[in-house]
């Protein structure tokens, strides 16, 4: 049953066909079997998971019928989990056992889910391949020579390899959507402010947003039902009623206006990804949707603006890692400055240091206007492009990533890595909701399609994604290795 969707497991638990303890044990066994190769988990919570599963079974016996009760999940290791190691993929926090829970963690605990463990990630969520983790690379379950994408690569790989039923991720410039595309799973980045950031270790505060990584759009809706909503502990969390995201999944798409950004089908896009997305658009037309080209004029500037805004915010957000109150401190500092410099140089990896340097530079005296302020202006232009496009269309669809997952170690220069997120970054700058869903397989590797919606129009995106998944089965495809592990032919 470990290859089932959350909706299916939920139904089986409700019907008494399986207990939470049984399904939890099945996932733990699976993790024991495959995590050595995939390295998707940094921490596995075997004992507490079984205790939580037992508690969930007891609660069910007492009449609790919450939809996610007893469902085993994994949290990206960026979410603070009380009494559990929370590393953010960094040596800096290699020993940090959080004394508190992130709001997202708290919400899933209240919903009765079972925490299997914490998933691997790019250090401080800075990366697009999961190669910057202090805890080693994550391997793509479709081909272990390839990256799973990043930064939520551990979560995407864990869902793809059936190491958990569902997982959380975070997305600052594509960190949910791109690994979802590379691993052939469904990933969802909600509107900025939809999900609380309390307890989610900050990378770039004005861009970060948590979301689900699942096996279907329906599962994403189930997770979003739990995750979303106002949190007074996060000033940027939006006070807006949370609808039942599963309610409109089955709305027909007749008359749906789909915008296709011409800039996302330009140079750099691989032929197979373009074909897969065009085929999907044809499928939507069959379902009654109307396709229109839209113009995101400034989208080519999104990577530039992002690599000012995100590092600038990060440079300040990561100043708290100073070796004074928690986490790593260098051995025998000779004085205060030595403690700061060695702690931070030994505790942070190369990519994190690089981004801190870029951000520090962009904010430093004499450069603020040319970099930070300029980037904030570009940010407005990008948002305005989307606002204009959404006057004419209901959703915008294009590729998630220009190509399928690349080989581990193949992108050694940062700029080429940064360009990986060319289609996803603008969405974060504008704060919009967007999903990536599987749209095909080329040369044995999955491909993803991005569906972008209007502010707080998560339900529409889920509806559009779910309808596609009702009429296609790309989201059910597994790599042959995983299918074999599942005992399938």
């Amino acid at each position, binding site marked *: 049953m470990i290859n089932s969707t959350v909706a299916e497991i939920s139904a089986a638990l409700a019907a008494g066909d399986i207990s939470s303890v049984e399904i939890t044990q099945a996932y733990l066994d699976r993790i024991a079997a495959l995590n050595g190769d995939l390295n998707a988990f940094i921490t596995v919570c075997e004992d507490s998971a079984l205790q939580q599963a037992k508690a969930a079974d007891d609660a069910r016996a007492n009449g609790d019928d919450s939809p996610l009760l007893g469902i085993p999940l994994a949290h990206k290791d960026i*979410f*603070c989990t009380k009494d559990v190691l*929370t590393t*953010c993929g960094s040596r800096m*926090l290699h020993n*940090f056992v*959080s*004394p*508190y829970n*992130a709001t997202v963690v708290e919400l899933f605990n209240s919903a009765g889910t079972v925490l299997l463990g914490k998933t691997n990630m790019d250090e401080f969520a800075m990366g697009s391949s999961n190669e910057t983790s202090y805890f080693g690379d994550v391997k793509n379950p479709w081909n272990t020579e390839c990256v799973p994408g990043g930064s939520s690569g551990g979560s995407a790989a864990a869902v793809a390899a059936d190491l958990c039923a569902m997982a959380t991720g975070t997305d600052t410039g594509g960190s949910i959507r791109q690994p979802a595309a590379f691993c052939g799973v469904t990933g969802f980045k909600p509107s900025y402010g939809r999900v609380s*950031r*309390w*307890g*989610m*270790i*900050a990378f*770039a*505060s*004005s861009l970060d947003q948590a979301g689900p990584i699942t096996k279907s759009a329906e599962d994403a809706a189930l997770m979003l039902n739990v995750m979303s909503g106002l949190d*007074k*502990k*996060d*000033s*940027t969390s939006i006070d807006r009623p949370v609808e039942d995201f599963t309610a409109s999944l089955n709305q027909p798409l007749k008359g749906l206006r789909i915008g296709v950004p011409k800039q996302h089908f330009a140079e750099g896009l691989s032929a197979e990804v373009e074909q897969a997305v065009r085929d999907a658009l044809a499928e939507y037309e069959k379902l009654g949707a109307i396709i229109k080209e839209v113009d995101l004029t400034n989208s080519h500037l999104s990577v530039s603006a992002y690599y000012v805004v995100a590092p*600038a*915010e990060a*440079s*300040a957000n*990561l*100043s*708290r*890692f*100073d070796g*004074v*109150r*928690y986490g790593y401190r260098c051995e025998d500092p000779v004085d*205060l400055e030595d403690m*700061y410099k060695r702690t931070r140089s030994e505790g942070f990896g190369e990519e994190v240091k690089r981004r801190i340097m870029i951000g*520090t530079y962009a*904010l*430093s*005296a004499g450069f*603020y206007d040319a970099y*930070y302020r300029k980037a904030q202006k570009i940010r407005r232009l990008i948002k305005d492009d989307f606002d204009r496009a959404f006057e004419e269309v209901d959703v915008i669809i294009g590729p998630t990533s220009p190509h399928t997952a690349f080989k581990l170690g193949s992108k050694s220069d940062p700029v080429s890595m940064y360009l990986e997120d060319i289609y996803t970054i603008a969405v974060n700058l504008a704060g919009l909701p967007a999903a990536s869903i599987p749209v095909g397989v080329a040369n044995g590797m999955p491909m993803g399609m991005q569906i972008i919606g209007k502010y707080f129009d998560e339900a529409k995106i889920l509806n559009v994604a779910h309808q596609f998944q009702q009429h296609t089965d790309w989201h059910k495809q597994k790599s042959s290795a995983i299918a074999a592990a599942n005992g399938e032919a």
Partner: protein
Amino acid sequence: MEWETVIGLEVHVSLSTKSKLFSGSSTEFGAEPNTQANIFDCALPGTLPVFNEEALRMAVRFGVAIGAEIGKRSVFDRKNYFYPDLPKGYQVTQLDFPTVGKGALTVTLADGSEKVIGVTRAHIEENAGKSLHEEFHGMSGIDLNRAGEPLLEIVSEPEITSAEEAVAYLKKLHTIIRYLDISDAIMAQGSMRCDVNVSIRPKGETELGTRTEIKNINSFRFVEKAIYSEVERQQEILEDGGRIIQETRRYNADKDITTSMRSKEVANDYRYFPEPDLLPVVIDDEYIAAVKAQLPELPDARKARFMDEYALSNYDAGVLVSSREMAEYYEIVASKSGDSKLAANWVSQDLLGMLNKNNLEITDSPIQAERLATLIARIKDSTISGKIAKTVFEAMITEASDVDAIIEAKGLKQVTDSGEIEKLVLEVIENNPAQVQQYKDGKEQVIGFLVGQCMQLSKGKANPGQVNELLREKMQ
């Protein structure tokens, strides 16, 4: 060469909220180290700020009290620097859009003249923790209880031209803050701190000279002395043909000199940018009007009223309103004693003298306003003389019993029984025949000596008017 001094003051005031600026930790003074520092104050990863509404209200209250422009949209910024008492590695403050904009204070100088001093701005920001330098095996200890407490930084225009004006400005600021009840503003405890920017220039010059900043001065007197000493230092340098280095200095009270501080960072580059974890703070006219409506009577208005209602001099009224508690104390004494002028003298001289001598605040005065009012009432109704009243006052400091009981117990009641007084008068006439003869010969002023003798004999209790009258009668 004649020089003129230009001074600007930056005053940090701890706002007296119950909880911190961005967290629900207590701000109570004097707790055990780090017992009032929660996960946010310790900057644990993932924690976020939420703004305290009372800090905003207090800042706006100050703004409307000094007639300042109020920022209807204020924005928090991060000021980045590394220091162990700054857990996040940045201080949240307001750079371009402070809550309080331009305003002004009117100060009264020693010669009675008034001067208006501009306030550039007042912004809300977080306090840092404390580094303790006692020996911990050669290490420093960090206490974060104070980290994240709300501060209001009030910046003056560089319009202050002397140490006297600087102190007058600070005292006025202190008075207003106390009237507004937004801070204890106790310099010795650090709830009011002052940085002084000083420069000098040849008289008549319009360009400002290079300034130095003297940090963290913790008393009015030291502000005055630090300015004198820094101005002198700058003059000596310039007159010797040297130049002033723009730098941060510290005042050493023992030696009465300012010394250069090694700067926290070689070249400060604070990399300010808008704090992305907080949103713009927006308030409307209605909010400002509501804060204004709740303002108490402020010192200038109260002083004018005292002069008008109680017929006090400019000086007396000024002294009495200089603290809200004293003004309130005075009003009780004035109304209950029925003599506002006598009340003013007793409060501003006797009471204040006694408090200063014993290092007491008026709120801790052993003589409560009602008791002082009764004492004055007893002078008015001739139960005691003004002179005896001083003795009663002394007794009131140590004895809690009521005024009449003290007068009674000590037998200080004025003797007004004419039989008793006649006995005294006759005894004095008998014992001083020479003076009596002088009086009879027309030496009028001798009467003073004879009255004095009677008073002495009565131990001060005889009613001097009655004595005088009876003496003249008996010597006729």
